[in-house]
């Protein structure tokens, strides 16, 4: 097995297919994501983004094809290297902010009390919830729960994060704040895989994959994708529609 720092790719997905009974969710999808960037999985609802993320974190197994995360097959043994933020808040409503974050810190193996306390505080402060740290999660607003959910995801300082629609339901101000967190994390060398269906999120990513009907229809930086439309004034939404049309013709 190659040593950790020699692995250049955070995510390697090769011709992966996945079906829910008769419904084809992913269709020979391939994707390579280098380390240390924010990578957006963009596509409409039902495109296969969540299925892909659930495969990447090991919650599902591909029917065919292969997946490697930081050079390894997704499994419980390497789960401490990743952080996963599901679409639902996925928090214990009766517990306080600190108790939730502390629980996931323990689950991810932070056994030293001092170190754990430091990282729990760091994660809660990063998401701006320190003043509400003793409040039960059930008393928090949707946006605050989203922030606590992110704190639970990053508390063990994983080098790779999978965030499934982390900005959905957030107001524009909080959405900007989230992207500031994400930017701070990539500056620390963390790789972020972020799913979204809004082009506003797409513009913040270092690189993107447009996903439709379980396939990657285009990949590149936001600028590359816009330029591919041949129109200088094109937005990412225009670019997405452009690729949907050209991909449809190619089929």
């Amino acid at each position: 097995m190659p040593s950790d720092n020699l692995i250049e790719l955070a995510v390697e997905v090769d011709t992966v297919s996945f079906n829910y009974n008769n419904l084809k969710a992913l269709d020979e999808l391939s994707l390579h994501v280098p380390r240390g960037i924010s990578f957006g999985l963009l596509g409409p609802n039902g495109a296969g983004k969540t299925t892909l993320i659930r495969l990447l974190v090991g919650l599902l197994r591909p029917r065919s094809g292969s997946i490697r995360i930081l050079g390894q097959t997704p499994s419980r043994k390497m789960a401490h290297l990743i952080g996963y933020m599901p679409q639902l808040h996925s928090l214990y409503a009766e517990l306080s902010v600190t108790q939730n974050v502390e629980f996931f810190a323990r689950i991810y193996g932070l056994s030293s009390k001092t170190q754990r306390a430091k990282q729990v505080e760091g994660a809660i402060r990063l998401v701006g919830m320190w003043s509400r740290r003793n409040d039960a999660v059930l008393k928090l607003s949707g946006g605050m729960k989203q922030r606590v959910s992110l704190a639970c995801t990053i508390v063990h300082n994983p080098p790779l994060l999978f965030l499934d629609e982390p900005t959905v339901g957030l107001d524009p101000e909080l959405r900007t704040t989230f992207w500031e967190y994400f930017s701070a994390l990539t500056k620390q060398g963390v790789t972020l895989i972020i799913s979204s269906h809004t082009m506003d999120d797409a513009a913040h990513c270092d690189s993107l994959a447009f996903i439709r009907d379980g396939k990657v229809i285009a990949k590149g930086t936001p600028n590359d994708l816009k330029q591919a439309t041949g129109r200088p004034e094109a937005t990412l939404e225009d670019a997405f529609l452009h690729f949907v049309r050209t991909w449809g013709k190619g089929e």
Partner: protein
Amino acid sequence: MMSSLAFTVAARVIRQLTRDRRTMALIFIVPLVVMTLIGLSFPETSVLDYIAPALLATLALFFGFLLTGISFLRERSQGTLERLMASPVSRLDIVVGYLCGFFIFALTQTLIILLFTIYVLKVNYYGDLWQIFVFQIIVIIGAVNLGIFISTFARNEFQMVQFIPLIILPQVFLCGVLWPIEQMPDYLQWISAVLPLTYAVDGLRDIMLSGQNLIHVGVELAVLVGFAVLISILAAVTLRRGT
């Protein structure tokens, strides 16, 4: 030996339930109310003496199953189980952790029922109190694991509640709680032979009414331990990473 991750899960379950004061109050009050009603509805002490062991076993199974089934289903529906399944914690750690966490509350309820039955309803019994309690612990472990296992097949609380008449009620009728198993048709007796409540009722009756000890009810105890182990393995196996 309980792993540190299972311990962490158990501690979290206990902390979460104790922070929910209404649930805590219900955990303590409901068994008291139920037992008071039962006590008032049995004016004949001799009838209550005979039915008490079966009631203790049935209520331990019922409360253990209900508490765990609904609580564990919440873990699924609120997404916390999915987050756990993507973490380094193993399926066995999750099942053992939840078992230990819920066990404390199921045990509390059973203890309340047992003490109320003996000291308030003044039911006559012959066996040792500690042996009755140890026997009940085995019943509870099976009930708690049964709740975790059955919650796999429910998608919401409403569906989970539907499992109560399916899982608990037939056992009340088939396991000698209300009338002797021998009076039932053969095919129903065969069914009762594979239901855990049959052995729980038999064992507790032997201890409480005949004054036998745990060694005398070794067969019943072994069956109940086997059931608890089997159902916990099933619970762990059906706890897919993909929830």
